[in-house]
């Protein structure tokens, strides 16, 4: 019994991380129809920033790093994405990929390609025993941070005027502008929030794995990308849902597959993803505005 609760906690932790990453991608995608592959590099740069800030007191270091990433995100929008705004999706996609490629190799240039060890909060890896279960404190932190961010974002989007404007822009950008919503401001805000989400993923991920490498963002952004699409393109709730779905799937497969097939677990995840897309091409949550209009 307790092993299943263990799995559920794992699923929530992994799913939460994926959900945060997916939300970062989904927010931008919803508003601009742009898939920001460089989001993985925002996470990576966050990790290396923590390395540089290691001497400082942890909360200050984390806050500084968040600010750095938010600025990076807003800057990349202004410099790299605004000129291609409104171009066809393939051009925007390749732009974000080129940016991602550039940042990855820039950091290879600066820090070398070899992975580096980093120990940001050793206390978090200490184990907590609770009612027959044993898990690292980091899991609790992950759940709390994920929950907090999701709740905060939900309140912002639901309760504030600007949040409503952003949701409107995510559904129908042109119409939002017709009503007077300022395009540039909404987009900059979306990137800023996306940066904050990337920073939080960075902290949690680095705390968990303890290593940094210039390529660490690649796998995460792919999972985030896939989660957004599976959860429902253009829907923020869908991105979160997709993240939890893929996270749960990952944990479930690694737990349930017999040992000799286990190395192939990723293949099973993707088979299921294909099946989901064949069944519901718009993703698990359908957003009306995204459907084809004749």
């Amino acid at each position: 019994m307790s092993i299943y609760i263990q799995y559920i906690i794992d699923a929530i932790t992994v799913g939460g991380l994926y959900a945060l990453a997916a939300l970062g991608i989904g927010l931008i995608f919803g508003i601009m129809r742009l898939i920001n592959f460089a989001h993985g590099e925002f996470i990576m740069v966050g990790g290396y920033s923590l390395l540089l800030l290691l001497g400082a007191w942890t909360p200050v270091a984390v806050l500084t790093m968040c600010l750095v990433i938010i600025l990076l995100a807003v800057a990349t929008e202004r410099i790299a994405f605004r000129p291609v705004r409104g171009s066809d999706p393939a051009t925007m996609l390749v732009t974000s990929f080129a940016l991602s490629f550039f940042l990855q190799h820039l950091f290879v240039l600066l820090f070398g390609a070899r992975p580096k060890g980093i120990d940001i909060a050793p206390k978090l890896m200490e184990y907590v025993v609770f009612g027959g279960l044993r898990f690292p404190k980091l899991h609790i932190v992950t759940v709390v941070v994920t929950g907090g961010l999701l709740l905060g974002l939900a309140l912002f989007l639901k309760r504030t005027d600007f949040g409503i404007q952003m949701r409107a822009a995510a559904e129908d950008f042109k119409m939002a502008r017709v009503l007077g919503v300022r395009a540039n401001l909404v987009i900059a805000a979306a990137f800023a929030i996306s940066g904050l989400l990337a920073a939080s993923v960075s902290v949690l991920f680095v705390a968990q794995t303890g290593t940094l490498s210039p390529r660490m963002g690649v796998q995460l952004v792919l999972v985030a990308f896939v989660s957004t699409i599976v959860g429902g393109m253009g829907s923020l709730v869908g991105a979160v849902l997709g993240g939890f779905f893929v996270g749960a799937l990952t944990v479930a497969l690694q737990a349930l597959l017999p040992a000799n097939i286990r190395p192939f677990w990723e293949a099973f995840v993707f088979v299921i993803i294909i099946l989901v897309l064949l069944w519901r091409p718009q993703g698990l949550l359908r957003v009306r505005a995204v459907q084809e209009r004749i």
Partner: protein
Amino acid sequence: MEFTGAIRRVWPFLSLALMVVLIGVLASRGSVVIQRTVADAFVKVVMVVGLYIFVGNSGVLSFGHASFMTIAAYLSAWLTMLPRQKQMILPELWPFLAQAHVPFVPAALIAATAAAVFAFIIGIPLMRLSGLAASISTFAILAIIHTVYGNWDSMTYGQGALIGLPLHSDVWVTMVWVLITLAAAFLYQQSRFGIALRASREDEIAARAAGINVFVQRLIAFTLSAFFVAIGGVLKGHFLGTLWIADYYLEITFLSIAMLVVGGRTSLAGAVLGPLVIAALLELLRLVEVGVTIGTFRLSAPPGLRETGVALFMLSILLFKPKGLTGGREIPWPWS
């Protein structure tokens, strides 16, 4: 005058073919380094033109083509490696593969055909999807093949480097394959299949209304495209003589797409110029990385400069010429 008319009609192909032959001939007279660089560039051209057959004509981005490269490259390895080597490196390889020893050309054709058959089979469910769902599904296929081949240690040497492929991809061989791929791409895009598919690229609903079976057209292009991309994978494998599963995953996928988009996604010229320009730039920057010796001083740049430079170049092209270097046009007839 009919003769000129005929030449004019095939000019988009002829102009590119002449350019490729010129580069190939010039390279063959150069140093070994130049020959290898050009051969590598030609391999990239085969891959990107192969990709273009599907992406350029259908407008659907595929992230899965590296899976065809993987399937074909490993099959070609199994067929062309010496049985002796296979016994040592892959002792658990299936017997009929372990004993096989096929010359390069038939092996390449068999491998590419197998990849094309695979593409046809997965295309049946996937080509019904459109837009982003299609693109993600193709990526899922790549991830599946990558996981399977990457963990199938007995057959593929898993994550490690499979060595022992005979080196066949020199300037001449790769050049010939570029010409074949170009001819195939050109014939396809001039055919009624290519035209029908391009109609669906512009306006899928209108094309369906006009009676075009978009699913069938996409499937045809997908299969044909897979064949040539697979050839590219085979050529790549026989260029270095080693296969590394990581070489056929994310970086090659996105680089191919980027080279196509930078060249100009909707024209054959774009599919050729994109990889050639990027390959040239990569080589130039590699020389900068290696450095130059002036007297007793050595000036060089740190590793990573090459890719950073290429990425910056791609970004600039996308910002200033979003339709790519060719703007989606073929090479114009010079006497009009």
